[in-house]
């Protein structure tokens, strides 16, 4: 039987081996042919040192884009055939009707200083979708907060209580705040496992901006039940919910190209797939046994805590003999893209450091070879930008050198006969065209698939609009590619120099990039392009025209970044029928509920009276918010007399100077100590009327 076969690793491992060999052959062949062309268009056919370096860099870059091309092409054939004997979803058996018996599953939402309203609106939507099924009783939701901002912490508690009260979900949706956020998200999930992991068989990990449909959650659990050797089942979350131009373009790309790329990835990964950190279901027992992450020796960025924990957890799970599968055709799984280019690059900065850190694990024991390749692949996502930048820099140096010193007729030391350098323009154009085809053909495949085979073009606004949207997406991504190249090169460079990053949560709502912010972020790249362009224009004008597709976007980086961040431009594109996605034309129930919940969060809060003040002030003053906050604290831990005296001094300071003069750390100290908070709560209410009481929002 198929499902039994997928549970047994040998069945698919043999197929995976042959598929990976096929992919490697395809990539190597195309890379060798393209590199040969590259060598031939160079003046000395790649025989000088600098030309050899150029050819090697070109080969590495071409291999990199070939991986994407062949993955997409294989995905195209799988989706065209409409049959994949290894697709895990093909093995899904019908659910037994009725009953609430089933494996207990925890839905985890690890959060860190997030937009609280958005997080809980997402949870509400997923919870209600699950509640509409007949098997929701086996699921519990856990909001696992690592927030370090006092106002965010209190707000999370209040909104949690409001949500539980609204949905009658006390005892079904849980909230836990962890003060020392050791090992960040992976530590947060590990902390859950240590406290409650034994109670549940599976956990579904969601991101702060994730939404999943109840039916999808049920199907994932059923698949895990059917395949007892699957450790992690990853869905492909579709990007939705943003209005800015760049985000809408990425949402469109995620919907149009995503399924084909995912099918291609599944073709060669099979049970060696990646875990992307969210929108996935995990078998808890093996996860606890094998996926506890160590600290790497040395200091960050290459040592210390493992930042991109998900890839490593997948590798460890697989190393322990459990399958990691990608359910590429399972729908009902969503996330939100970054709203602006700068936000996207800030996220990439973290991922870059995390992926480069994986190089430390390349030779780790008990990691299967495909996962070593995936570590390398992850690092190449960013290192390739630096290679591209170096390739362009070396090409420029060579062009300038040619212009200044003239042709070198004796390029090889000791050569007896002169060599006439030959610039083969025809071959250069052929190579350029081939590269463009490798980059663009997958997009054309996607259009053909959606329009001809799947007949889903109307879900993207019709065939005409689909074509226009692809054109606009190609134009936008071409313009932004040099900006990403410069930023990623910088990230790789500073990571290798040993500079660590500060972790900040990504924004969860549209926010236009300001001109000053954009100038500060892209100013260096613009200056570089200006100097680069001026030098090449002056010294070697023909080469300058070859560089214009790189230089012009870099010179326009600031307006490109600002305009692409604008929600008004995104909405205009929508009105013009550009970048439409199925969820916009026919929103699923879960996303409609999310939208409604977000629109109602600004209404007057029903439970609490001091709304409008800082959340910290409410925790001190409003008896219900204070009561709720204290209810989470089990009992006061015994603290040293020094800490106790320090906290008492903070209480005194709060009473005399008011909340505005307290720092974040002082507020956190008060919120963490129920005894001190109780003292402060009582003494604030005992303040005589006047300025002191008004500072706390008490007007009597």
């Amino acid at each position, binding site marked *: 039987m198929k499902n039994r076969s997928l549970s047994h690793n040998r069945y698919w491992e043999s197929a995976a081996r042959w598929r990976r060999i096929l992919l490697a052959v395809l990539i190597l062949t195309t890379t060798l042919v393209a590199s040969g062309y590259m060598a031939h268009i160079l003046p000395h056919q790649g025989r000088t040192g600098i030309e050899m370096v150029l050819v090697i860099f070109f080969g590495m870059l071409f291999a990199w884009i070939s991986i994407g091309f062949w993955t997409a092409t294989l995905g195209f054939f799988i989706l065209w055939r409409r049959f994949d004997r290894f697709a895990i979803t093909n093995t899904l058996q019908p659910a037994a009707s009725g009953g609430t018996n089933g494996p207990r599953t925890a839905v985890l939402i690890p959060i860190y200083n997030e937009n609280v309203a958005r997080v809980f609106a997402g949870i509400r939507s997923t919870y209600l979708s699950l509640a509409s099924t007949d098997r929701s009783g086996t699921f519990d939701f856990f909001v696992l907060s690592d927030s370090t901002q006092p106002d965010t912490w209190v707000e999370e508690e209040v909104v949690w209580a409001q949500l539980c009260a609204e949905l009658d979900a006390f*005892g079904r949706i*849980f909230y836990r705040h962890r003060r020392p956020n050791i090992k960040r998200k992976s530590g947060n999930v590990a902390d859950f496992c240590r406290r409650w992991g034994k*109670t549940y068989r599976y956990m579904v990990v969601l991101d702060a901006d994730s939404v999943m449909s109840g039916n999808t959650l049920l199907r994932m659990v059923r698949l895990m039940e059917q395949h007892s050797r699957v450790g992690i089942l990853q869905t492909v979350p579709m990007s939705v919910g943003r209005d800015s131009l760049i985000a809408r373009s990425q949402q469109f790309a995620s919907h149009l190209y995503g399924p084909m790329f995912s099918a291609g990835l599944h073709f060669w990964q099979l049970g060696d797939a990646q875990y992307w950190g969210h929108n996935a279901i995990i078998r808890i027992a093996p996860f606890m046994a094998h996926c506890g992450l160590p600290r790497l020796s040395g200091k960050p960025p290459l040592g210390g805590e493992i930042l991109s924990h998900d890839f490593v957890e997948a590798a460890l799970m697989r190393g322990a003999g459990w399958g990691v599968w990608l359910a590429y055709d399972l729908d009902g799984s969503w996330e939100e893209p970054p709203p602006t280019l700068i936000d996207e690059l800030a996220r990439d900065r973290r991922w870059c450091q995390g992926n480069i850190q994986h190089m430390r694990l390349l*030779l780790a024991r008990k990691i299967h*070879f495909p996962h070593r390749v995936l570590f390398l692949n992850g690092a190449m996502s960013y290192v390739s930008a630096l290679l591209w930048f170096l390739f362009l820099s070396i090409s420029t140096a060579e062009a300038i050198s040619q212009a200044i010193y003239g042709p070198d007729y004796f390029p090889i030391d000791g050569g007896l006969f002169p060599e006439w350098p030959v610039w083969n323009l025809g071959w250069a154009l052929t190579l350029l065209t081939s590269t463009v085809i490798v980059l663009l053909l997958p997009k054309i495949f996607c259009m053909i698939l959606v329009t001809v085979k799947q007949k889903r073009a109307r879900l993207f606004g019709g065939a005409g609009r689909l074509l226009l949207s692809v054109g606009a997406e190609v134009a936008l991504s071409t313009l932004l590619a040099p900006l990403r190249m410069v930023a990623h090169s910088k990230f790789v460079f500073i990571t290798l120099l040993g500079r660590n990053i500060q972790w900040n949560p990504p924004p969860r709502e549209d926010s236009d990039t300001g001109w000053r912010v954009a100038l500060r972020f892209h100013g260096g790249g613009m200056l570089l392009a200006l100097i680069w362009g001026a030098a090449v224009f002056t010294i070697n004008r023909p080469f300058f025209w070859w560089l214009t597709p790189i230089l012009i976007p870099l010179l326009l980086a600031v307006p490109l970044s600002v305009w692409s961040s604008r929600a008004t431009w995104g909405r205009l594109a929508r009105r013009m029928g550009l970048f439409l996605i199925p969820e916009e034309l026919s929103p699923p129930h879960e996303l409609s509920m999310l939208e409604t919940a977000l629109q109602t969060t600004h209404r007057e809060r029903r439970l609490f009276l001091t709304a409008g003040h800082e959340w910290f002030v409410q925790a001190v003053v409003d008896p*219900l918010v204070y*009561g709720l906050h204290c209810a989470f604290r*089990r009992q006061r831990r015994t603290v040293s007399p020094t800490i106790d005296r320090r906290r008492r001094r903070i209480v005194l300071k709060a009473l005399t100077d008011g909340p505005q003069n307290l720092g974040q750390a002082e507020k956190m100290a008060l919120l963490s100590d129920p005894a001190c908070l109780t003292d402060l709560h009582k003494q604030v209410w*005992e303040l005589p009327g006047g300025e002191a009481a008004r500072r706390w929002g008490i007007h*009597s």
Partner: protein
Amino acid sequence: MDDGSRKPAMAGAKASEKAASDAPKGGTHRYAPWQEAQERVLLYLKALGVPPFQSLDITAKALRSAIKEKKKASRETPTKLAMRALHDILADDHRLLDQADYGTYPILYRPWRTPDPEAAKSSGIDLEPMAAPPIDRATMPAKNIRHLSLFSLALGLIHREK
């Protein structure tokens, strides 16, 4: 308003008046601190979601208690004495908050109902599971990652790792 709800309200108002009549005698300005104390207690009870008629009753009790304290030559302000009295009243009688607007959510009233976690355990009031289920502790050891030599990696490519 029907008679049922009017009676406690009127009783509360009378109690409040009586408390005011027990307050120190003198000009109107002498009452100002007591007026403030009354308003503060009422505001606190309103924030707790205690129904208005019950608030007046409790306020009267708190003010009476505060006046007694004041007569013992306490140098504290009436507001402070009244609020302390209020906290004592709420701690003494947990049922006072049963009628509160959000009484169905006991987690909001835990500090008044079960101020001491040990007392909560002995009284059988178990509010903790509403925020998080009982902990069932287990271990999740960090993996000790050791590295392969390049030779064993090459060997692993030929003979798959077990």
